[in-house]
């Protein structure tokens, strides 16, 4: 088996980025276990989708770019996709949790869409 050899500086940078990203992922998952209420817990995995994912993505891009002697940007696709979709999922989960909390009568902020009356005189509400 022929072992591909990476320059030592690239090995150091890739190893540091990967270990740091994995450590941040552990931190985010630990917050999921340790925080008390759901509305605190929903913040904690976001760091996995941003900092941890981007660190490991940069490590992958650097590793394959140096190894294959060309620009290998395919891992960027994953990081951009996760960055776009993670807020959507979080917002949906937040709204679902608020909806369920309201139905069980917990003390959470009321729904904005049903509280604000539509003003017929406002130019945005003409139709």
């Amino acid at each position, binding site marked *: 088996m022929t072992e591909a050899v990476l320059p030592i500086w690239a090995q150091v940078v890739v190893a540091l980025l990967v270990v740091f990203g*994995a450590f941040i992922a552990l931190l985010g998952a630990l917050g999921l*276990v340790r925080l008390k209420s759901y509305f605190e817990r929903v913040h904690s995995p976001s760091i996995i989708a941003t900092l941890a994912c981007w660190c490991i993505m940069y490590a992958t891009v650097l590793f394959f770019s140096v190894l294959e002697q060309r620009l290998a940007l395919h891992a960027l696709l994953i990081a951009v996709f996760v960055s776009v979709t993670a807020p959507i999922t979080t917002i*949906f989960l937040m709204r679902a949790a608020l909806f369920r909390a309201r139905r069980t009568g917990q003390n959470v902020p009321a729904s904005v869409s049903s509280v604000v009356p539509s003003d017929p005189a406002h130019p945005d509400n003409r139709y």
Partner: protein
Amino acid sequence: MSPYFNWALSLALFLLVVAMACALIRLIKGPAAQDRVLALDCMYTTGMLAMLVLGIMYSSTDYFEAALLIALFGCVGSTAMAKFLLRGEAIE
């Protein structure tokens, strides 16, 4: 590769597996359904990162497709489950 490089990748994989175990704890004992969906969301993101680290470890780009598919279907699944919790049905 130097042995320290492989050691660092093994350490990163170990940390990611511990993170998945933490998410699994929340998935099992989560008091509400939204906690379980959030834990599953966290678990698939961590599993996707583990796939990328495996790709670096074995110097193979084959793991990239698996990671991309996990990211795609995990997002769709989490959004569908959140929609189900919100409305009581996934597709209206």
